[in-house]
């Protein structure tokens, strides 16, 4: 198999989505995604970064650019016409999320919008034509153009919304589809994580060489196995902790893509909202190498370029 540089891959019309995830937030997932994005900028590869951590998005803090549009993500919720409603209770019975409350004796009917998932079951259930629907906001997707070829996209859900998933889906859908798209995935292994990684071609898991790190990594790997996504691992804060994570990678035959040693200088740059690969040549080289490793392993696992 021939090795192809990211630049060549992009000019050959490749579009590739790489998710950067970790079982838990704060292991360096944002550090890795922002630095990878920075190497795309420097090398003039077309690409984008989508911040899918809709509960706590902050990738925008690390880059300067121009606002390039944003839109509201909405869902439908029922509106009840009390002139037509007979308080029969069919809509309440069919609502699996207990979002409709009825007191026929008053009579009163109320939709609890924060519980509603917008499934439409109540509209189907009502025999009286008493239900119409309106749109309510779940959050917002915003774009930031760093230059002509590179864009950041942020998914941000409103406080109190039942799930970040609709906003995440919309952000990934609206992000660029040419070149390399990086997805900064939400923490955990539940729905938001799965909805993000299932849209990626390759998953980079960031972990720490500690018992907590290993436990989270195991859970992420098991989840990725069930949906059949290839993955590789970046060990952050290498040098602290123990060797168990490495033994696990060997046993599972998961590629170690990069080790980032614990480094006060790197931590300080990150703390100030600076991207190491943008200001330091040696970090830029290391993260470019990471991108090359990802492309090589992705190619090995799935794609003959």
């Amino acid at each position, binding site marked *: 198999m021939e090795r192809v540089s990211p630049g060549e891959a992009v000019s050959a019309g490749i579009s590739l989505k790489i998710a950067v995830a970790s*079982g*838990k*937030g*704060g*292991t*360096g997932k*944002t550090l890795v995604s922002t630095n990878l994005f920075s190497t795309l900028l420097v090398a003039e590869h077309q690409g984008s970064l989508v911040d899918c951590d809709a*509960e*706590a998005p*902050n990738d925008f*803090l690390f880059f300067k650019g121009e606002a390039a549009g944003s839109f509201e993500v909405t869902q*439908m919720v029922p509106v009840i016409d009390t002139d037509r409603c007979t308080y029969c209770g069919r809509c309440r019975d*069919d609502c*699996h*999320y207990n979002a409709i409350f009825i007191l026929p004796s008053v009579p009163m009917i109320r939709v609890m919008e924060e519980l509603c*998932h*917008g*499934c*439409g*079951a109540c509209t*189907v259930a009502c025999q009286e034509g008493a239900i119409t629907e309106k749109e309510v906001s779940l959050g917002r997707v915003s774009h930031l153009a760093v230059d002509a070829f590179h864009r950041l996209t942020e998914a941000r*859900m409103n*406080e*109190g*919304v*039942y*799930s*970040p998933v609709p906003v995440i889906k919309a952000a990934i859908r609206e992000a660029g589809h040419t070149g390399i798209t990086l997805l900064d995935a*939400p*923490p*955990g*292994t*539940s*729905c938001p994580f*799965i*909805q993000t990684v*299932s849209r990626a071609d390759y998953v980079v898991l960031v972990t720490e060489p*500690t*018992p*907590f790190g290993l*436990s*989270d990594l195991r*859970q992420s790997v*098991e*989840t990725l196995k*069930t*949906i059949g996504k290839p993955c590789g691992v970046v060990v952050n*804060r290498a040098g*602290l*902790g*123990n060797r168990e994570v490495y033994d696990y990678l060997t046993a599972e035959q998961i590629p170690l893509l990069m080790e980032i040693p614990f480094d*006060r200088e790197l*931590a*300080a740059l*990150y*703390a*100030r*909202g600076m991207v190491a690969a943008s200001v330091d040549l040696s970090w830029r080289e290391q993260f470019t190498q990471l991108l090359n490793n990802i492309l090589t392993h992705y190619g090995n696992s799935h794609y003959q370029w």
Partner: protein
Amino acid sequence: MEIAIISGKGGTGKSSITAAFAALGRQVVLADCDVDAANLYLLFNPAHEEEQIYISGQKAVIDYAVCTSCGICIDYCRFDAITEKEGRVEILETSCDGCHLCARVCPEKAIAMVNSDQSRMVAGSFRFGKMVYGRLAPGEENSGKLVNMVREKASAMAAALTSPGQPPLILLDGPPGIGCPVISTITGVDHVVIVTEPSLSGLHDLQRAVAVALKMERKVSVIINKWDLHPALSNEIAAWCRHAGVAMAGQIPFSEVVVEAMVHQKSIPEWAPDHEVSTQLRSIFKWLISSCLLEMK
């Protein structure tokens, strides 16, 4: 007394701090509410005394012996979970929200709803008291309800502790973010501790977490962990807290003993009782308990 420890985002050292408090307290019930990535059991290895199945929701499943591939369900599903592939109607399990609508509209009654039952709640004793944690199975939902189940169990275990002198202390280790499981974790607690670290994104996440906690009308205080990694930003965070009227519970320096303790399956005060980090943790804990007692009076 119920204290929740949260952070706008994971990785601030919140769990290590919670573990330290558990080791310092008396009559402790430790509840790991980070049901997506529970990990305190790794440090405390609790006896596995009780396990309960948690039904997180339901998923639609098609009986292909009955399905005529009419595709009506596809039109009704609002979660894009049903597709047709080469004449076969398929439900994408990871996208199904469990709303039951497809099962109702199917003229052949070919769709059944099956319980998602892989998640668990586990409870038992550990060396400083009682412990309970939830484990949400990958891809399962409704973590907020599992958090509620964990908290109910924690309250029941606390009530069962006979307490000479001090009331039992329930410590809740919260999930990252500001979503539904976080709200479930802090609803009704006596005090919310938010752990942050000195970085721009840390400050950003802290502000969101404070907003949520204040909206829930909880007493809030802040711990800056690894403060010495960026003293100037730590000062800025402390200043922001003063300005926002949020109490500073204390600052903890960065140290490798935190990871060393974890590798040895110990809390920090157990592993390095004389270390500066442990000293800080003890004084923060003391402040926390006395200010909670004051608030409760």
